């Protein structure tokens, strides 16, 4: 599968599959919104955050990105809503909220 082909649509047939379903180009995850099965999302309260970076360290999906000001932000394109960041935050700065609450 090339990156172009990864945009799966009705014109994508079994003939477009690579042998062994191999993805022959690196970086294809950038095209795939894998955060869309999340049922809860993390909300960070900057007032409580002490920039310890544990959330960044523990995130199993590398979905937490450091910002220039030293704080952290969640990339909701990938975040699966597992809640590990909220659990490990020593300051209780991260809260998980239901997706439908927006």
């Amino acid at each position, binding site marked *: 599968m090339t990156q172009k082909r990864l945009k*799966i649509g009705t014109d*994508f*047939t*079994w*003939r*477009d*599959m*690579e*042998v*062994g*379903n*191999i*993805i*022959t*180009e*690196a970086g*294809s995850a950038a095209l795939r919104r894998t955060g869309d099965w999340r049922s809860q999302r993390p909300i960070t309260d900057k007032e409580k955050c002490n920039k310890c970076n544990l959330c960044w360290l523990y995130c199993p999906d590398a979905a937490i990105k450091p910002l220039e000001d030293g704080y952290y932000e969640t990339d909701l394109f990938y975040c699966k809503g597992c809640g590990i960041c909220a659990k490990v935050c020593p300051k209780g700065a991260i809260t998980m909220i239901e997706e439908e609450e927006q």
Partner: protein
Amino acid sequence: MSKRIGLEASFATAEAARMADVDVIAAYPITPQTHIPERLAEMVADGELNAAYVPVESEHSAMSACLGAAAVGARTFTATAGQGLELMHEVVYAASSMRYPVVMTVCNRALSAPLSVWGDHSDAMAVRDTAWIQVFCQNSQEAFDLTLWAFRVGEDPKVLFPVMVHLDGFHLSHVTEPVILPEQEEVDRFLPRFHYPFALDPNRPMTHGGFGPPDIYSEAKIAQELAFRQSKEVVLQAWKEFGDIFGRCYCPVESYRIEGAKTLLMTMGSFTETAKIVIDERRGKGEAIGLISLRLWRPFPFEEFRQTVKDAEILIIFDRCISPGMGGPVFSEVRSALYDEEPRPKVVSLIGGLGGRDMSDEDFDYVVSRGKEIAEKGSEKMLETVGVRGEVIRIRG
């Protein structure tokens, strides 16, 4: 010059892997497969084979290590049996759907419980749907030949599927027979170096084993199924090349004295040779009987099979496994393969040789007599297990 020596089928298998110059062996010892990894470990330790021998902690790890090795383009071999094959089960599927041409010998063993280390085809039938090319061996020579052939087929760029070589546990794996060993030069001519086109390489990053959400899984499986069925062309081509170089010819469905045969007995694996004795005896008495042996089990050789049985009136299928609640698994498939054919033989099922129970020539003589009786009485849907003590239980299947 090739040489003819006495060799146990397990050692013949190990010798084939050595002459194939395998790069990686990852295996966990289990009866009755033990002699194969033991001999290969010895060869590596003694410097007779330049390969990495990975002494893994389980069969699940064995197959996982094989996948890793194959992913970087190593020629990879393993062997297992019975419960070991069950323990690696999920990874067996991954090997084929990720298209890694691992070669694995399975010394067929019954599955627990009751605990049995002895042979039957229960383990083979449990991996029927794993999309591995699968063949059954009749003797030590085939164990050697089909192991070499397995690498040639699996690694072909048009195939890239793993190959399973079945040896009947003990009845074949531990039997010493004359084996003709070829020259290394002949092996090299038949089996060129392996170049896996998608080998993992830091300079050419790619993803193996990505996930398949519902909008792609069906396409992935259909692509795999088509490629798997098309592999039969290479299966046949490689057997032809094998015959040209080594002088021994193989085909998907072996037939023995089938000319004008009204009754055909069908077996798989090493019991075929015992059954041949019965065919000779009955032919000697003028009976129109022959034998077929299914060597290629997957992909199923529909065309060759139908062609071979088309003139028979009765086809007796001997299974070494019970599919609980269904019957003989090979019988079920074969009967299904003939359903649309006209005319077609009456297909009769007999089961036997479970958990290492011997099947003598006399037992096969009973299989033929009883099979013909069932067919002639018109109760061909009955299934029966040969040699079970106690009253005969005949189940309508």
